[in-house]
């Protein structure tokens, strides 16, 4: 299948993953091929097919707006690589 146009540098930047030139080449080709498969899907005739909004016939599944016990602050933060002031500290990604 034809590889789709694919800007691997841009996507890697979005994902904050640094790639070597070799990895850029290999992954760019692989991801391009996967996107190329979309063309195969377009070959389907779905004129008479109802769009599937959801796998099960359930709508508006809600609960009462009542506070209930949940994870403690301490448990929630236990795996945080960095924490401070009761909050997760994460790398800055937006300038």
């Amino acid at each position, binding site marked *: 299948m034809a590889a789709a146009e694919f800007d691997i540098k841009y996507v890697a930047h979005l994902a904050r993953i640094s790639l070597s030139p070799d990895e850029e080449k290999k992954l760019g080709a*692989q*991801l391009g*091929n*996967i*996107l190329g*498969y*979309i063309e*195969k*899907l377009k*070959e*389907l005739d779905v004129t008479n097919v109802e769009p599937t909004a*959801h*796998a*099960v016939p*359930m709508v508006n*599944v*809600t*609960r009462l707006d009542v506070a209930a016990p949940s*994870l403690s602050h301490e*448990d*929630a933060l*236990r*795996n945080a*690589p960095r924490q401070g002031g009761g909050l997760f500290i994460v790398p800055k990604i937006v300038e």
Partner: protein
Amino acid sequence: MLNQLTISELTARLVRREISAREATQSCLDQIDRVDGKIHAFLSHNNADALAQAEAVDQRIAAGMAAGQPLLGVPVAIKDVLAVKNQPLNCGSKILGNFISPYDATVIEKLKAAGAIIFGRLNMDEFAMGSSTENSAFVTTRNPWDTARIPGGSSGGSAAAVAADECIASLGSDTGGSIRQPAALCGCVGFKPTYGRISRYGLVAFASSLDQIGPFTKDVRDAATLLGVMSGIDPRDSTSVPEPVPDYTAALTGNIKGLKIGLPKEYLVGGLDPEVKAAVDAAVKKLESLGGASGNFPAAHGLRGGHILYHCHGGGVGEPGAV
């Protein structure tokens, strides 16, 4: 050997006090020591914790407090994609570092309430993205029947562990075949419950409108037992359905007269391995001889279904292969 028993056999012997839960768990741990160096089904397992759970079961049995628990004393190993409190949760990946889950998935709560011994983190394709378990960030699990072969995936560790009698049963997850395919490749029972049957709370998501948790077992009765324990609506999973949970084991009468068996004709075409076709044909003939009736039906949109499936997954990792 106790690790070779089924859930039905083990629970019966435990209730009759012929064996202890500690002996049964130890038997599984011994088997892991014997074979897992070659099979690599387990990413980790905590022997002391498993034996402590087993001893707690034995104490409850001795105190007469263990009536009616369908998984009493049964060592069940868990795919590394399910949250078990105070156990590592890595999804076969290095991305989550030393993450220790602070909570139990709903299915784990249900298994514990049913008396099961929850142990071990089973190998898988990273974040369930794969069909061979070769995409684990740690190790490739081997098929116990031939260690030069793959066990399938993404629940390869779950399938291999049951097939190699390293546990009595295991849990896996299935998005596009990740229980069914490794169960077939490793020769154990595995199926994907209907979407919405089992709560996904505590299952690390891959494709949220497709994911389901399911069992790997040594026989169908055990699978029905586990399905019954795990099924049911859960307020913490808004995609779980309010269908009542019947006694699934009651359907195992052995009588299949009048059962209709559908064969998707688009999958039984050229390119199918002749040995696989022969095995499917033999199974169909056997079911027909027992009273079932088979017929072809068109799978929706034919072989294109494979491509659709792959994209519903989000593309997976690496080159898409034939599905």
